[in-house]
Structures are given as C-alpha cells and as structure tokens.
C-alpha cells in the first residue's frame, strides 16, 4: 500500500499570549507541535502499513521550520517525508492549500498512486476541517470524514469498509479505494517510535519542495492570490459595556459571600427561582 498522511505544524495554542499593549500575538518561545488531531491519522496509517505492507509518506505545507513536525512523524515510524514550502504559498486559505497539497500528492513519484490519503479531523489553529474534503474533491478520492474505525480493507477488490461518526450515531459505510479519510480523535493510541525510528528521523534529509517541484505551474491558484477568503480584521473581543458586579471575598467567610451571590442571581433573573429544582442527574 502507499499511504499519504497530511499533517500540519501548529503553535501550541495553549501557550499563546496576546501582547497586552499592541495586541499582537507573542510567538516567541511558543513551542510548535504537530496538530494533535493529525497524530490519530498517523497511527491509523502506520497500523495499515504494518498490516498490509507498503509505505507511509508524510506531507506538510508550511514554513521551513515545519520540517521539525515531519521529523517527529518519521520518529513515530513514518517512512518518508516531504515539506512543501514556497513563499508563493504564503497567505493560503483552505482552497489554495488543498490545491497545492493535492498537486504535490500526485507528484510524489510513488510506484503507484496512494490508496488512502489520511488527515486529522481539523487543525487546532484553523479549526475549519476543510483541507481534507478539498483534497478529496481535487484528486477524485472517495471522501470519508469523521472515521472512527477502519473495519476492513480489500486491496484486491479495492474496497474499504469504515465506521463514521454522524449525528446521534455511527454510519457503516462501504466504499472504494482510493479514498480520503479524516480520522476522529481518540480512536487509537499513538505508538512510541523505536530507537531505530528515532535515529532514522534524526538523520533524515527531508526534501523541501517549491511549487515547481510539486508540479505546480498555476501560481495564481496558490497563496493569497488563490485564496477566495481573506482576513480583513483581527481583534480582541471588547469587554461588555456594562461592568460586572464585583463581589469580593473578605476574611475567608464564605457565608455572607454566598448569600450575596444568590441574592444577585435572583435580582437579575427572578424567574430562575421557579426553575431551580434539584434533579437526580448523574
């Protein structure tokens, strides 16, 4: 099998702070991580490779430092990695991103086209979940999102059966290869790479592909130019005009404080008293 996993290097959003004066994002020292959702996709890919044989190639579009994410993926056991990086890609929205990545996938030079392209459910910085479907559409792959389990793969018949999370339940779907699968979080536990994998990753020479290397001639479809959506404004939410009623704790006395809070609640919402009813919900 040839399996491609698309990953993204993202800032560890839990550690991002906003400069109190200039309202800029303080990026210094914010560590970058592999988008956590992508790791579930990577593990699914590695499991399939271990079972059916073949190769897992990890691909990312990003700035030069995204190579670190690819190194990490290799250390988990992926076989090859490619960095897609070009200043022409700067400012790409999801449409432009799926264009570039799809083109790169076609030009990976694999012995045969990949049977499955994996992505994570969404990224923690963009949260759109749009690039996967974009790749599926462009490469005419069967689109299977929110997959919780790969039930079976028949390479000979080129068939795949999966379980997919939908509202209120799980769909059982049968489809054909090649397909794009976005994996739901929590469906597996990422393995620990062996010493051999870690050494291989540390020594790997990961190629950086510019647009031309990826077979992209239509620069107009990339970057800002190829992005129909545009961010016009970034801002911090304004505090509510009406200031909150401040209730402060004095002398560790919970009692009077609690009474004040409850009084305040009923003052704002007198109707609530009727709603309050103890329930036995566990």
């Amino acid at each position: 099998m040839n399996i491609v996993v698309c990953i993204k290097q993202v800032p560890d959003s839990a550690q991002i702070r906003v400069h109190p004066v200039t309202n800029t994002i303080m990026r210094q020292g914010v560590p970058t991580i592999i988008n956590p959702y992508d790791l579930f996709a990577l593990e699914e890919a590695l499991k399939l490779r271990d079972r059916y044989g073949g190769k897992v190639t990890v691909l990312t579009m990003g700035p030069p430092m995204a190579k670190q994410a690819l190194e990490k993926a290799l250390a988990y056991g992926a076989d090859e990695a490619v960095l897609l990086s070009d200043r022409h890609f700067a400012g790409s929205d999801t449409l432009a991103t799926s264009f570039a990545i799809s083109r790169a996938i076609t030009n990976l030079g694999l012995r045969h086209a990949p049977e499955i392209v994996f992505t994570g459910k969404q990224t923690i910085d963009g949260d759109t979940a749009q690039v996967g479907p974009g790749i599926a559409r462009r490469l005419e792959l069967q689109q299977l999102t929110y997959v919780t389990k790969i039930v079976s793969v028949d390479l000979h018949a080129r068939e795949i059966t999966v379980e997919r999370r939908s509202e209120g339940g799980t769909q059982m779907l049968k489809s054909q290869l090649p397909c794009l699968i976005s994996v739901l979080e929590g469906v597996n536990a990422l393995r620990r790479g062996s010493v051999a994998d870690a050494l291989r990753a540390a020594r790997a020479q990961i190629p950086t592909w510019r647009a031309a290397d990826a077979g992209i001639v239509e620069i107009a479809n990339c970057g800002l130019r190829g992005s129909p959506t545009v961010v016009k404004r970034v801002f911090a939410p304004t505090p509510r005009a009406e200031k909150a009623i401040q209730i402060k704790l004095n002398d560790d006395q919970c009692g009077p404080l609690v009474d004040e809070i409850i009084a305040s609640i009923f003052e704002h919402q007198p109707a609530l008293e009727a709603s309050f009813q103890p329930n036995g919900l566990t």
Partner: protein
Amino acid sequence: MKGEKFHAIVVGAGMSGNAAAYAMAMRGLKVLQLERGEYPGSKNVQGAILYADALEKIIPDFRDDAPLERHLVEQRFWIMDGASHTGIHYRSDDFNERRPNRYTIIRAQFDRWFSAKVREAGCTVLCETLATRLKQDSRGNVTGVYTDRPGEAISADVVVLAEGVNGFLGTRGRLRETPKPDSVALAVKEMHFLPEDVIAERFGLTADEGCVIEAGGTISRGVPGLGFLYTNKESISIGIGCLVSGLAAAMERPYDLLEAFKHHPSIRPLIAGSEVKEYAAHLIPEGGFTAIPQLFGNGWVVVGDAAQLNNTAHREGSNLAMTSGYLAGKAIADVKDRGGSMVKSNLALYKSMLDSSFVIKDLMKHKEMPRFLHANSQNLFVSYPKLISKAAQSFVRVDGNSKLDKEKATSAAFLKARSRWGLISDAVRLARAWR
C-alpha cells in the same frame, strides 16, 4: 539498528550536555545525545544568566547568532527586611565592551540555539527519549544505556551523565547518591512581561543594557535562600530559591515566598503593570564541594548539576556546567586520540582538568559556605538584615536626635542581638567560610 555503536552517549541536552556533545563532535567523535524533553530546553529552568567567558572557550563566536537578551552593566546586592532594602550597587560603563561578560538569556531559546550548534557539529540528537538505566557488564562497567523507546539498548564506549540534579541514571546505577534535602534548593520563578522601554526607564538602561538584583534577608523567612530579579529584553525574570531542608523545617512553600517577594515595597514598583508569562520551578544543587560525588568511572563521567557543580555563594551554575561538560568532552577526545580505552584510570584526566580549572578551585574555596549558611540561617537571614535595616534607617532619618546618640543606639541594638562575642565569632566564621 542492531549493533549500532557510538563513541559517546550524552544523557541530557542542558548546558553541560550540550557543551560535552559539542566538544566531542567537533573532535570527530560519533556522539549520540538523548534528551527526555520534547526539545532541548523544554525541561530546563534557570534565571538566567549566561557567563560569556565559559561559552567563549567552547564557541568563540557565539555572539554572532546566539539569542541574547541584555548584557549586564549593573549588579545590585540587597539586604532586605519587611519594608526596606539596604543595597550595594555596582554599575560600570566598562561592561559596555565589545565582548560583554555576562548576559541575561531565556533558556528555552538559548538551548535550542545551542542544540542546533551541537547538531551542526555532527552529533545525532534524539528528543523525547528518556534514558532509563545504564547498560553495565558483569563487572559493573558502563557500556551503554537503555531508553524508554522500544528496541535494544544503545552501546557506547563512554556515557556522559549530564542528566541534571534530579537525574536518576547515575543514582540507579549506584554511581552516586541521591542528593539530600540539605544539598538542594528549590527555586521558583516567573517571567513578567513588560515593554522594552518600560524596563529601560525603570532601571535606567539604554539599548541592550541589563541589570541584576540579588536579594537576601527576611524574604526567605529564616530559610537559607536568595531572591533574584533579572532584566530580559521584554520581560523580567523574578524568583526565589531556598534550601529544601529549610523549607520543610519552616513549613514554608516557595510559591508563598515568591508572592511575598513580589509584593515587597522595593520590588513591587519594578514589576508593576507586568503580565505574568510563565511560572517554573526547579531544584538547584547547593551542597558545594563536600557534596560532589565520584566524577568518573569505567565507561562514564558525570557533569553539571548532576555532579553538584554549582557555586551557591556567587550563584553561578551554568558556567560550571558548561565548563565541566566541555572539559569532560575534551578529556574523552584526548583519551581516544591517544588510543586509550574509556577506563577509570584514563577518564581521571577529566577530573584533573576540572581540578585545575576555576570550577573546583572556586568550589573548594567556598566549601564551608553551605554549612555556614545553614548553621547561621537565623542570624544571616533574619537578625542581621533587620539590624542592618534599622541601622541604615537611623543613619538616614533626621529626627532631632544627635548623631552620637543614634550611633550609640545602633551599636546597642547589635550588641543586644548578638552580644560582643557573638558579633566577633560571626565575623570570623564568615571570613573563614569565604576564604
């Protein structure tokens, strides 16, 4: 991977580990460095001050691209009580030299830079890899390490233990003892974000100049300890470190002490309006010379904090770490060049290099300091600061009393607190410990 062998494995990618790995890789050795954190620096905590002299000996042109915050031009020593501080300040324009002597740094960034250098030198660095125990042969000679990654142990001629104050590889392998509570301090620190111009204004600094405050006194509530404040480019590192045994005895928590320190009237205005960026805690070896363990053996050496190479009195640690790592690397490379094997007798070269360097010389000079601080903690950190504070205030305040009367009152206070004999023996003890 079966059978892959290295000349040296360095456990840890902190100051001492990076220095050792760099030194050996530059001499052409096949080196593997293991770091348990996600990236070098993720597990390291320091004030932090970089001592250029030590780094220059390893990477002479580090100033070209190393991430440096401010170069220090001023040092303030403060003796503090509840409401005051009495200080000696030294500032000099001499420190605005072409190759400044000390800098503040931010470890997460600095370590990443240092690690890049280590990699450029040809060393293989594995992160997120914890060395779990030493591989030893039937005679106890160290021949490699086991890690928490699936797979075989990794073999090497020599293992450099740069695993930090908490490192358990050496203790598990019975190469040294776990540090005792009276040999370690627990330090807590916060990074306070302030705009560059505010920092410059508050401390009277221009451009990249920096200032350091080291403070002692009632801020540690009788526990031997010191507070510090360092100016980075756009932030202030503020923290306090106290002897663990003292904390336990006094039932104090470092975080409470830090809060009190931050609210001290002398400190509060310096960090006013800042935003706390991060909080960290770390153990610091404080045992001094007498706590230094066996530094070398068959197939191993120990460097840095793991070897208790930290100078309490001068609050120097990273330069000792760097230097010890560098010397260990150098010794190992020298032994290899000679065609020698990594046996104890050959690795003794490391110790002799260390003995001739400032590292052991300084530690030996101050070997009585830890005991002295411990034995006299009440005086040093409570009584004297209060007396000094009162004396200074009396000197400065103009209240209609004659100067002579005031001086008499001050002397009386000192004598009352310590007695003539006490004062003299305190002085003598301090002199002895210092020398």
